[in-house]
């Protein structure tokens, strides 16, 4: 997996964002056991990987990530970036004790925030759209954040004693 040929503004900006996300994820007061935190981050990376791979490679090829068409080290980092970002979203979700219809408000609002953050990423050339539109991203975020909430509720419901392991 190659390093980027030119370490320019998009890599610098992403590195800063990535460090901030990791810092936040570590420094926030503990709300989940480490086993759940690991699952949430991995699920975020997994869903980001699936969607980006489906949308950004052949045959759809609707946007590029970073400068090269190749799969670079920073492409790998961006998936972990998604993981930490979605983890922080779920942290906020849990902190606000969202129930019932508030779930819909949370998903709609956080998808809007995610879309705005994506626009900032686009302005730094982390993503280069090739026919892709930001409102497609909004729809994708609705799906991803909703699935993230469902996943979180599922794993919390399975939290149980493990004497027999």
């Amino acid at each position: 997996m190659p390093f980027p040929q030119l370490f320019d503004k998009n890599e610098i900006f992403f590195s800063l964002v990535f460090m901030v996300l990791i810092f936040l994820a570590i420094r926030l007061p503990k709300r989940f056991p480490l086993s759940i935190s690991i699952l949430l981050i991995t699920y975020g990376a997994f869903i980001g990987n699936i969607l980006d791979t489906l949308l950004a490679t052949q045959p759809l090829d609707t946007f590029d990530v970073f400068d090269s068409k190749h799969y670079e080290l920073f492409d790998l980092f961006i998936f972990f970036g998604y993981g930490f970002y979605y983890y922080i979203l779920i942290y906020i979700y849990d902190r606000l004790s969202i129930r019932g219809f508030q779930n819909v408000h949370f998903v709609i609002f956080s998808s809007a925030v995610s879309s705005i953050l994506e626009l900032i990423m686009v302005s730094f050339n982390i993503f280069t759209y090739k026919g892709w539109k930001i409102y497609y991203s909004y729809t994708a975020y609705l799906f991803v954040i909703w699935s993230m909430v469902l996943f979180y509720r599922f794993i919390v419901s399975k939290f149980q004693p493990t004497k027999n392991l």
Partner: protein
Amino acid sequence: LFLSIIINITFLIVITYIYLKKRLHIYESVLIFLSSSFIHSSKVQTQYLNKETLIVPRDIALLVIFWSLINILVPMILIWYLELLYWFRSTKLKILLTFVCVIVLLGMEEIAVRFNVLKYSVRNVNATSLYWLVLLLGSLLIQRLYRKFVLKGVN
């Protein structure tokens, strides 16, 4: 035809696993599924984007099979491998199981090549076997490390 066979096999593997009396904690199964799918998908992307040794099918049915293999079937085989590993007591059986799983994964890949789901410009069976072996043992390592967190986090 191949699409329907793959969907049926995947469905069968998933449903059987759900109803099986499990040795793995649900968190471990989920983590193995997510992480192995992520690792295998990254490897495949490296193959077709960087080295260009693999060609992604254009046909939509083949593409569905391609992504089902990467994101569902391979992770499910790895979960089954770990589950069976805990069922067997003897070390010999565990080693045998590891090699059987490598053969199953190689066989699955071979069938995919025959049906044009995977098209390799360069294919090295020894390297692929080694990759599957490393993936199986890597998933075992991840599961062993994660089990400590599960025990610590829950009790």
